[in-house]
């Protein structure tokens, strides 16, 4: 179904298409271990039966309506402690592709794409194989809601729900992968400062007051993201706190 991508230099030249599979990330991991894939390979499906979000949580998708795929990279130039850069570049590639369709789409820390009035439209699940020195493999699992209109829970949307238009999946995939390639090459070149600035610039509620809960409800604004990937939130009191996942919740 998906054609080999023509608009990229080295990503998307090897596409493994399945009409149905449990999870493209799991399948990508199996294929890495069996040495059936290399840098730039894509595992893509029309229907993901056991798609995963965060550890233990499910990602739900209607067959044939959305983009659910995993892209395999080998960022061996990246030290394990610098891996949050991978989150940044994939979010920036998604943001660049999607914001061309709607300007209200922002990056929601750490790695969701979020429409400011409609909700979440894309989730990313990155799984790496690392050793002491470097990131040997990175599997970038992307679940992007494209043409699906009905969702079983609120706060979730799709590109069609936002724009009203049916979008060609193959074309969108090729646009997106070429953007990932662009940002990946910037990372490879070591443009950390530029990438960081762009990531902050597209981050939802960066330098804006919003309500959070860290056990207590408070008003804060995101003033930065540290190397580990934690957000630095400044409270009204002037106190600055670094939060990891699940340590703080955005209320509105």
């Amino acid at each position, binding site marked *: 179904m998906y054609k080999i991508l023509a608009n990229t230099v080295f990503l998307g030249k090897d596409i493994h298409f399945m009409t149905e599979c449990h999870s493209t990330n799991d399948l990508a*991991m199996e294929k890495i271990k069996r040495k059936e894939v290399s840098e730039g390979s894509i595992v893509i499906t029309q229907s993901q039966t056991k798609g995963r979000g965060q550890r233990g949580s499910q990602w739900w998708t209607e067959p044939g309506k959305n983009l659910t795929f995993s892209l395999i990279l080998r960022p061996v130039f990246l030290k394990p*402690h610098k*891996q949050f850069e991978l989150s940044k570049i994939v979010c920036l590639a998604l943001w660049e592709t999607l914001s061309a369709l709607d300007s209200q789409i922002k990056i929601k820390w750490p790695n969701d794409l979020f429409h400011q009035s409609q909700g979440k439209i894309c989730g990313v*699940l990155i799984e*790496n194989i690392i050793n*002491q*020195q470097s990131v*040997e493999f990175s599997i970038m699992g992307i679940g992007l809601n494209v043409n699906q209109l009905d969702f079983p829970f609120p706060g979730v949307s799709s590109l069609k729900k936002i724009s009203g238009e049916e979008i060609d999946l193959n074309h969108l995939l090729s646009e997106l992968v070429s953007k990932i390639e662009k940002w990946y090459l910037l990372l490879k070149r070591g443009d950390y400062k530029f990438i960081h600035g762009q990531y902050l610039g597209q981050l939802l509620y960066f330098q804006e007051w919003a309500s959070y809960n860290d056990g207590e409800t408070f008003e804060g604004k995101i003033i930065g993201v540290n190397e580990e*990937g934690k957000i630095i939130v400044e409270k009204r009191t002037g106190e600055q706190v670094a939060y990891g996942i699940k340590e703080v919740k955005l209320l509105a």
Partner: protein
Amino acid sequence: MKAKEIQDLIDFISNSGLAEVKIETDEFKLSIKKHADAQAVRVEAAAPTQAAAPAPAPAPVAANPSPAAPAKEESSNYVEIKSPMIGTFYRTPNPDSDAFVNVGDTVSKGQTVCIIEAMKLFNEIESEVSGKIVKVLVENSQPVEYDQPLFLVDPAG
């Protein structure tokens, strides 16, 4: 401190069981950290105000490594698998599956021994040694620091 003295110190440390050594005197600050196959050395000049103090620098160096000797003796046959990053340690691929490795299991180089998660990035950690798992040093779903030992492996096992 002379270049030769620094070199001798590095040689001494690389042959010892110490992973990291920090020395600070009025004249200089020296931090040496040992990785699997690389050494990072940092020498910083002390603050200018202290530069006048003529402390005999190398003296404490020779005395320093001795307290660590017993620790080396204790586990000299075992190798640690350490965490290459800060994150949360998981022994299983997902919440309802078996552990990657248990005490008594034999692991080979390149085999996945655990997952460390940080900010929604999930990392399978590959063992860099072959041998038998002697001890699991961290509880499932506990936070781990950079370079924290996770497993004790007997390379002869």
